[in-house]
C-alpha cells in the first residue's frame, strides 16, 4: 500500500506542485487548505506524513501541529513544515510543536522526496 501524505497549504498552486512531486515519488496524496481542515483530515484518516505550511487563514500550521500532537495515536505522525518563514524563533516554535523537519520555500523536489523516504523508513523501522 502506498504511504499517504497529507498536504496542508492555503495555496492551490503549492498543493498542485506538491501533489505532482509526491505522486511521481510513489506516494498517495490528500489535501487540505488550512490548518483546521488539515487537523480534521489527519485526525479522521490514516496519514503517514504531513507537509504543512505556517501562514494560513483559519488555523495556522503550528497551531494545527500543536492540536494534532494532543490527539491520542496521532502524536507521532512525522510532519514537515514547508514555509516561507525561516527565522530562528519560528523554527524553534516549530520544533516545540513537534515538527520533524523544516523546508524554506521554494522546495527542491528531489530533496523533499529523499527526506520523506528517509523519515518514513525510520518510522517503519521504529514501529
Amino acid at each position, binding site marked *: 500500500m502506498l504511504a499517504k501524505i497529507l498536504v496542508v497549504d492555503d*495555496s492551490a498552486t503549492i498543493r*498542485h506542485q506538491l501533489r505532482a512531486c509526491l505522486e511521481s515519488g510513489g506516494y498517495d496524496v490528500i489535501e487540505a487548505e488550512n490548518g483546521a481542515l488539515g487537523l480534521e483530515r489527519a485526525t479522521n484518516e490514516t496519514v503517514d506524513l504531513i507537509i504543512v505550511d505556517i501562514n*494560513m487563514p483559519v488555523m495556522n500550521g503550528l497551531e494545527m501541529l500543536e492540536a494534532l500532537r494532543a490527539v491520542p495515536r496521532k502524536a507521532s505522525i512525522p510532519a514537515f513544515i514547508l514555509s516561507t*518563514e525561516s527565522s530562528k524563533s519560528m523554527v524553534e516554535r516549530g520544533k516545540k510543536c513537534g*515538527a520533524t523537519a523544516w*523546508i*524554506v*520555500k521554494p522546495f*527542491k523536489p528531489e530533496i523533499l522526496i529523499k527526506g520523506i523516504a528517509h523519515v518514513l523508513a525510520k518510522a517503519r523501522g521504529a514501529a
Partner: protein
Amino acid sequence: MKHVPKRLLVEMTARNVIDLDKLNESCAHPFELVTESNVFAASRWTTSPDVTAFIVDSSVGEVAAVELFRRLQQDSSGVPFVYVSHESAVLSCFGPLLPDLILRSPINYEVLLARLDELLGSPAFSEIMIDVATKGIVATMARAFIPNAEIHALRFRACQHPVHEINATIPLCGEAISGHVSVSASPDTLKRLYHRMVPHRPPPSGRMLEDLVGEMSNQLLGGLKGVLTTGGIDFALGIPMMYTGSSCPVRYRCRSGSILQYIRGSDPADEVAVDLALYSVRKGYEESEATGTPETGELAFL
C-alpha cells in the same frame, strides 16, 4: 543598484517657466523628467506606474490644471502634485482639493526641492536596503518562478496602483520595519508560469491565476525576509490578498515611496512587476554572519 530613477512629469508651455536643468542639477534624487505641453497629453500619465510626481505650471491654464489634478486624485491618489502659479489667488481655484505644494513664480528651487525630497525621499530606501532587497526578490523569483530572472527596469514611485491585470499584496510587519510587497502579472504570463510549474495539469482558471500570484508574493516576501534577517531586520509575513482587473477596489497607497521592479526571464513576455513599499524603517541594515536559519529549499531536521 545605485541608480533608482524617479520620474517627474512636468507640464508646462514653451515659455519654459520651470528651469529643468536647474531642477535636475540641484535635486538630491536622480530624476528623469518627462515633459508634456498640454493637459490632454499629461492625462495619459495619471494612471502610469512610472510617474513619481507631477509638476504643473499655471500657464497651461488654471482650469486645465485643476482638471488634471482632479483626474490624478481619481486615478492615482497620493502621487504628489506640485502647482506653479503666476497668480496670487491660487487656492480658490482648487476648491476642496489641495495640491502637495503651490509655488509662486518665479520658482524658489530650494523650497521646491526640499518639498520634493520630503515627498519622495524615503529614508527607507538607503542604497544598501535597495541593493539587498532587490537582490533577495530577484533571487527568489529565479529560483521559484522565472528561470534566469533579472531586473528589466527599476522605478521609484510615491504611490502605487497595479501594473498588470492580476495582483496580490502581502503585508510585512516587525519592530524595525513595516510595509508591503505587491506583485502583478498578466493572465498570459501567469498561465505560462503555471504550466512550467505543473505541466500535466489542465489550464488554470482565473482563480488559480490569482492563487499563483498570491503564492508568488508570499515566496518573494519570504526571500526578502531571508536576506533582511541576515542584516538584523526581522518581520512577520501576512497573508496575501489577491484581486483581478484594472478597476480593482484595492489601491495600495503610501507616502513613503516604493521601489517598483519589472522582472523578466529569458522570454521578455514573462514580465512580473514587484513593488516593495516600506512605510517605516527604524533600523538600518547591518550585514552579519550566518544566522543559523534553514537554507532555502534545503531540508533541515529539527
